[in-house]
């Protein structure tokens, strides 16, 4: 993770793509979101969605998967001991939207873009970085977006 001071508003990172296969959609939903339109092909066809769709939490979890993968790759590229701080926890997120369902075989391409940096009066060694995170399908339709927030360490604080 870079230092708070080194993060620039407008910085966009492409996180890569992920294909949602039927067994993956059903397996995630079977554990965490067993609504028939996520777990049962036939029931899904008869539902308002007209076919099997991924749980929105599955779409989000894959964003996190690719985000962590991207950070690990960045760390490897810079070397283990580049002195940068570890990634901090997140206080939560805002404005999560699932505007288009994710269907079987969809290829979702994920990204993150820094949109805001906030100083914390109570914690002078930390700042909050807000990012607009997106998933877009193979037709260019937005399937997921949310404003993520991360606590990031400051290099210079006194």
């Amino acid at each position, binding site marked *: 993770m870079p230092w708070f001071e080194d993060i620039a508003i407008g910085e966009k990172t492409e996180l890569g793509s992920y294909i949602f296969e039927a067994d993956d959609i059903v397996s995630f939903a079977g554990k*965490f*979101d067993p*609504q028939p339109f996520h777990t049962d092909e036939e029931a899904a066809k008869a539902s308002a969605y007209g076919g099997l769709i991924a749980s929105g*939490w599955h779409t989000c979890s894959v964003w*996190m*998967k690719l985000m962590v993968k991207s950070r*690990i790759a960045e760390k490897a590229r810079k070397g283990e001991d580049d002195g940068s701080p570890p990634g901090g926890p997140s206080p*939560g997120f*805002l404005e999560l939207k699932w505007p288009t369902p994710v269907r079987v075989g969809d290829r979702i391409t994920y990204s993150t873009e820094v949109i805001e940096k906030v100083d914390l009066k109570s914690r002078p060694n930390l700042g909050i970085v807000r990012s607009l995170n997106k998933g877009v399908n193979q037709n260019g339709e937005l399937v997921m977006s949310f404003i993520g927030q991360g606590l990031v360490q400051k290099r210079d604080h006194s």
Partner: protein
Amino acid sequence: MSEPELYWEDFVPGETREFGEKHVTREEIVDFAKDYDPQPFHLDEKAGAASILGGLCASGWHSCAMLMRMMCDGYILQSASLGAPGVDEVRWQKPVYVDDVLRVRNTCIDRRASKSRPEMGLTKFRTELVNQKDEVCLLMTGWAMYARRDPSAPVETGGAV
């Protein structure tokens, strides 16, 4: 599928439902983290203890997913749910640790009929995932869609509570 018990009309602003008893195991925390969030504090006790989180704890996305499952078991699977357009806000207020026992406190705070789709309505919930110490680990607010029992009935328009 059996006939749903709960329609849009059955969620009344001001009403709270409390349900669920979910024991969180080390194995499921680590399994989820390996698949979706392999940061050290979600995988390893020592790394968790050394971090700001103070111990091995669940990915925030895992907490969301566990909450979703508890809501499905608590009422959604008995309802005429049509999914959700998104979530206004999630706050991860306290970590979810190994052996925590979680329950859900779900309050309906607003509702409105859909103008474009008279067969459905929207309901806004404030949902808390609470641990055995009565701490709110996760607070979620957002709208969900439900089929209406009677789309032709007039809709009372009440304000948010």
